[in-house]
């Protein structure tokens, strides 16, 4: 948030400079190191404070505040009617949320881990995704299903799945996945405001990362529509000219590190943070690829029949004549998510991304 200072004349230029410095200090005062988890927690609290119909429920989200503490303090602040624990049954949680959304509420529910959401899949695929369509819009389902997902935390089996492709493949669902602390706040607010059901996928390895963010300023920006929506708008996380790295969620930071390393070798890589897998921002992705002529898509999920393969297909369909090389992918292998000691071999790494970039048929000397 940069302060805006208006100078009316050259004469008071010095005064203005002082004012600007003071304003900058004020702005800095609002900026604090904020974790991804705190941004999500604050987004929930701000939405609940603004709108009575926003309810939070799931497993261990009440007194405990969630196993990742994303719902910390909400029961205390808003009462057990607004944030509460349910019996341990994911289909029940999603199914009950559907009924609540049918009857005027905006439930924001937590699936404790990616793979624990699978018991709810029928409710999600057959009802959450389809209710709006099958009733020709007469029965919208404004609800958010929060799912901590992906690996990189040394988690045990069934705690590290990248399950986004299942949801992205199901028409009627929107699929959001933030990669920065700022987006964690803004995108969750936007998901809760959405008239459509949103699968909100939180990269759990990012929960404890920090950024300098002014949450109160973000709240005001969101509530006054002073920031553009993120839905359907990919972010250019880093500008570059030689090739485009396309990533989302947990892979964005890896892509950024790869771009940093490539820059040291003289290659300028652009990094696109997809942000909302559904709806996908074809325009931003394609504009970047048309500019650079080369692209690598990065994702933790197994590559076969996945979001990454979809993005590659769409680039090929739309940018074929701008491409100087085949579009490559760096993804998880087509294996079940590995045991903790093996995950370093499985996850997309900076080296693997740089190898893929090297393979983009560069002309001699490039």
């Amino acid at each position, binding site marked *: 948030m940069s302060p805006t200072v208006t100078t009316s004349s050259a004469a008071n230029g010095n005064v203005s400079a002082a004012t600007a410095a003071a304003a900058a200090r004020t702005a800095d005062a609002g900026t604090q190191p904020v974790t991804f988890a705190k941004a999500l927690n604050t987004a929930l609290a701000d939405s609940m404070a603004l709108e009575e119909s926003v309810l939070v429920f799931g497993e261990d989200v009440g007194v405990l505040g969630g196993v990742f503490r994303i719902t910390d303090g909400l029961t205390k602040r808003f009462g057990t009617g607004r944030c509460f624990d349910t*019996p341990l*049954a994911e289909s*029940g949680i999603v199914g*009950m949320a559907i*009924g609540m959304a049918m009857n005027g509420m905006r439930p924001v529910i937590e699936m404790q881990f990616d793979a624990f959401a699978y018991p709810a899949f029928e409710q999600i695929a057959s009802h959450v995704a389809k209710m709006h369509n*099958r*009733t020709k819009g007469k029965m919208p389902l404004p609800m958010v299903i929060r799912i901590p997902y992906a690996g990189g935390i040394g988690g045990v089996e069934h705690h590290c799945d990248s399950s986004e492709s299942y949801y992205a493949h199901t028409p009627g669902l929107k699929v959001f996945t933030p990669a920065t602390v700022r987006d964690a706040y803004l995108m969750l607010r936007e998901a809760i405001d959405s*008239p459509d059901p949103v699968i909100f996928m939180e990269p759990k390895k990012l929960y404890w990362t920090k950024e300098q963010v002014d949450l109160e300023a973000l709240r005001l920006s969101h509530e006054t529509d002073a920031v553009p929506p993120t839905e359907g708008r990919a972010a250019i996380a880093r500008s570059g000219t030689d090739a485009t790295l396309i990533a989302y969620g947990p892979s964005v930071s890896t892509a950024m590190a790869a771009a940093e390393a490539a820059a040291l070798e003289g290659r300028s890589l652009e990094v696109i943070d997809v942000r909302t897998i559904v709806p*996908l921002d074809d325009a931003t992705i394609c504009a970047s690829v048309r500019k650079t002529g080369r692209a690598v898509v990065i994702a933790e999920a197994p590559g076969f029949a996945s979001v990454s393969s979809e993005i590659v297909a769409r680039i090929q369909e739309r940018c074929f004549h701008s491409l100087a090389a085949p579009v490559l992918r760096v993804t998880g292998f087509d294996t079940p998510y590995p045991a903790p000691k093996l995950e370093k071999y499985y996850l997309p790494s900076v080296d693997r991304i740089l190898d893929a970039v090297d393979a983009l048929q560069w002309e001699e000397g490039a």
Partner: protein
Amino acid sequence: MTTTEPRDAIEQVSSKFGITPEDYMLPARTEIHMLDINGKLHPSGQQGAEPGHEYPLPSPKALVDAYEQLVIGRRVNDQNSALVRQGRMAVYPSSHGQEACQVAAALCLGEDDWMFPTYRDTVAVMAKGVAPMEVMAGFRGDWHSGYDPKQYKVSIQSTPLTTQLLHAVGVAHAAKLRGEDTVVLAMCGDGATSEGDFHEALNFAAVFNLPVIFFVQNNQYAISVPLSQQSVAPSLAHKAVGYGMAGERVDGNDLVALLAVLGRAVRLAREGNGPLLVEAHTYRMQAHTNADDATRYREDSEVQGWIAKDPVTRMRTYLADAGLLPQDTEERIAAHAEAVAKNLRDGMNSENVPDPADLFAHVYSTPTTQMAEQAAMLADELAREEDAK
């Protein structure tokens, strides 16, 4: 929002009946029935015999009104089956033989109460007031559902089994949080009680002490598989005690008993005593759908045995014997049923061409870029087809 804990609610209501919580939750020793198979008021069954399971006879007006819906329901089932045979309707899962359950399910509810029906509960949906041709949109293949669930407080007819019971729980939960006294009736069949969502829905409703009536029409078959291969519980109503709610079983071909049992269940739920499970013992007289062949899995003698228990005949005999069906009333009811059937026939004969653009219009509240692109692609394809004509 009532702050009564579920356990306290059960304690309070059972002590009101002078019985233990276990006896309140367990169904009566035999199913509740009021009419015998000849339509005579059962001497010992005018009221349930056991404490806490006593059911007063509904009023004459309520009985005649219900009979009218019963006759209409039978006519709707037969008319729709005929329309399927004539190829004018894609599919119709008939509730022939189960009309008493259908009618009681709708009539026990107040205007602001919600119903969650299945694909076989068309008669119940109509009896709750949904316009017949709006109900039929799904069966004639126009769209998945044709009515506004919010307008009628009737959810769309669920095809996936028991998933809708959880939605019923959610609707009741939202209403309770707002302090409304809405009751929700959620319907399923005997086979569906094997599904996981049946368990989760009953448990959630009990834990949150929600006013939901789970109404199981036990029609003996899940397509071809008999109840004995779904459950070896003493009865499906006995499952209630496992969740800490009251269960009752009722003769599902006895409209008088159904009105009494469901009527009381709705009152108890509305008073904050938590959910209830009601199992109605009935029979699916026809095949699962027109695509099914019931002779492959059940004997004709079994079907014949149930014809003798027909709910329409029993109710008619009882009302006529009680002097509640003068000729003009019977004629009026018959004419009403014929008018409904004619409306269905006329509706099915009228041409209705769905708009292909609707494929994309309702997937999201506002079509995404991708939806708009695909809609344009189809529109272009159709325009070229039109030009080629």
